[in-house]
């Protein structure tokens, strides 16, 4: 394993491991800059294990590939701006998990805090435990799976993507939904504005089955309800813009 630019050999804290095993970074007493600098170099070339990093906010920020396995709880902003990496957290996540992700996969074996997967454009976020309020807020295309229960205001102002909650959801679910779908296996306290219940299609069932198989989630797609939007334009009522011929559908 090479050492990241700007990091001295003394900075690299590793644990004993057999030849060929994945490198291990230990974050105790180390800064975000030091750990993320190494992650960017190491993770791109394969997989790395990280431990003792719950004090760091913004761990694994902006990675473009590779795999990071974190064997502790994390701070806030884990995998923010992720653009292609696979990040697996064996513990609980803080707030703002996978903030603004565009590509990649983030899997949390425990619970996630407030506003998990906000502003995501793409990729997949899987939370095996419970998720907090405002999960998947302003989702613009990511797939967000919550195996446990989710809080209030989930998928607020979602513009695209799928949000799947295997357990129960709180109040104001899907408030001002513009596009995309919400699937709930349990119950919800209330739906937000601009939402409606829709029937599950064969395509929906197949999609959920695919998600559950891929991420080893035990749930029956047939037991789920689907929530979609009422109107694509729930705010101001102006006319659609003129389109050039080349753009017209």
């Amino acid at each position: 394993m090479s050492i990241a630019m700007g990091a001295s050999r003394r900075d690299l804290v590793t644990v004993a491991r057999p030849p060929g095993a994945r490198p291990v970074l230990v974050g105790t007493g180390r800064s975000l800059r030091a750990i993320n600098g190494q992650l960017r170099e190491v993770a791109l070339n394969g997989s790395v294990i990280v431990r003792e990093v719950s004090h760091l906010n913004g761990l694994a920020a902006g990675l473009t590939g590779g795999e990071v396995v974190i064997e502790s709880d994390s701070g806030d902003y884990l995998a923010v701006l992720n653009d292609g990496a696979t990040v697996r957290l064996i513990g609980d996540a803080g707030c703002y998990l996978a903030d603004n992700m565009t590509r990649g996969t983030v899997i949390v074996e425990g619970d996630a805090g407030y506003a998990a997967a906000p502003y995501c454009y793409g990729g997949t976020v899987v939370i095996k435990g419970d998720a907090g309020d405002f999960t998947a807020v302003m989702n613009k295309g990511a797939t967000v799976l919550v195996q446990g229960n989710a809080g209030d205001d989930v998928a607020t102002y979602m513009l695209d993507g799928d949000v799947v909650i295997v357990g129960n959801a709180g109040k104001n679910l899907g408030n001002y939904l513009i596009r995309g779908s919400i699937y709930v296996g349990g119950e919800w306290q209330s739906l937000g504005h601009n939402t409606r219940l829709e029937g599950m299609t064969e395509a929906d069932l197949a999609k959920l089955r695919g998600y559950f198989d891929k991420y080893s989630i035990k749930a029956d797609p047939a037991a789920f309800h689907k929530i979609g939007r009422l109107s694509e334009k729930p705010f101001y009522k102006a006319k659609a813009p003129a389109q050039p011929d080349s753009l017209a559908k």
Partner: protein
Amino acid sequence: MPPVNGTFCVTVMKDRCINAGMPGKCATCVQVCPYDVYAMDATGHVRVANYNACVGCRICAEFCPQDAIRINPAESEFLVRSPWTFPQVEEIHQKAQTGQYALRGFGAMGFAPSFDNITVVPSQIASPAPLDKYREECDMEVVIGEDSCERPIQMQYPLFFAAMSFGAVSREARMALAIGAAQTGIMSNTGEGGLLKDETWLIKGYENEERTLKRWEPGGHLVVQWSTGRWGVSAGYVRAGDGVEIKIGQGAKPGMGGHLLGAKVTEEIAAVRGIPVGSDALSPCRYYDARNLEDMKHMVDVLRDVTGYRVPILFKLGPSRPYEDVKACVEAGADAVSIDGLVGGTGASPAVVTQGVGIPTLALIPPAVRALREMGVHHKVKLFILGGMRNGLDAYKAMAMGADGVGFGAAAEIAMGCRACMACHTGRCPYGITSQDPELRARLDPEEAGQRLANFIKATAEEIKILTMLSGHGDIRDLSEEDLRAMDVNTAAITGLKLVGYERRLPWWEDGRNQLHVG
């Protein structure tokens, strides 16, 4: 009883009027006017019989089948009918008919404490002699992030183009801003509508993507905005900028998020922002991923980390509590803070917010400067002022009060050709600046508009140079409040500047009691 006699001029255009061509036909105006302004004689001719009786209700104009009547106030409506001016009456009618409030762009209009009530003090015998603008140099460079990042922004002039997103303005306007900045070595700012590929090389002065043909010197700086809607944002977007601006608010709608109305959301813009064509893109009023100052500090850390600690982090504030807000930005780790005043705002917004919410630009500066001085970072963390800035005189005054530079939004649009009709939000800008209609956009030539922007910036910089040197300075960093005088008591009270004639600051500034509001 009618209001003041002679308040309104009644004009009937004879070439349109049916009765003028065919006496006896059409006397609609006579019938609808309840004040006998019009009369029809025995021959069937309609004439204006009593100008003074007109109360300005305009019902005759409304009912005239030929649109032949004009009713105009003989004196300013503001003087004779305020607060019930014709525009105010029409706005109420509009709401009554549609149930919708008014939207518009282009900032607050009318009276607010202004830089116009401040005068510049030239050097004479009792102060250092003036410098010669024609034969001596004046240093106007501004550096952002000098001590905090590897690649600070070095602006040739203390001026920049304010954030105006792709969507709010056209692709051609964004390109023009990049070309203008490239020719003058200043900053342009993406706003929160994502990044156009073209502007990344245009702003560096290249006319091709391969960056082999350098056309404009010295090259400018592109700041990418990080905001509450996060439109078109990715790790690549953040890394593409010469700086990242965290937007907290803006002058047009402080306390509200950006509004891009559906009328402007074309297929191209929808693709960048990830929303359906024609759907309103309404940014949240606050960050969903930062709930307090601690979170904001972490956000700054994250942005520094993702950009490799290479570029500065800027903050943009709306006009709220400048003293406290600026301190919070510095605590969060800002390299620069921009504050947008009440007068500012190119963006579409509910009219009542644009017109009536926020602190006037002039009044933002003293508390903001005081905050920076108390924290020991004045001129280290840069302070930029926006909101109705028009020329080098405004810029000079803002800098003498303690700012490091000023931003141009509306003035930049005007430099591109805008006539300030305030209908940006409709998407029908006749000059192609704030429109997404291909026919209207074709009216804006990015190179020509970019040249106009560069000319405007160069001329403005020359104005700053003239004023700086005639007040005895060879460096804009040497400007101070001593170079200015307030011309009325209100302005002296707001700014802490010495009052003309009195030649001192007002008492509550001199004895330090103005600090009381802090605690």
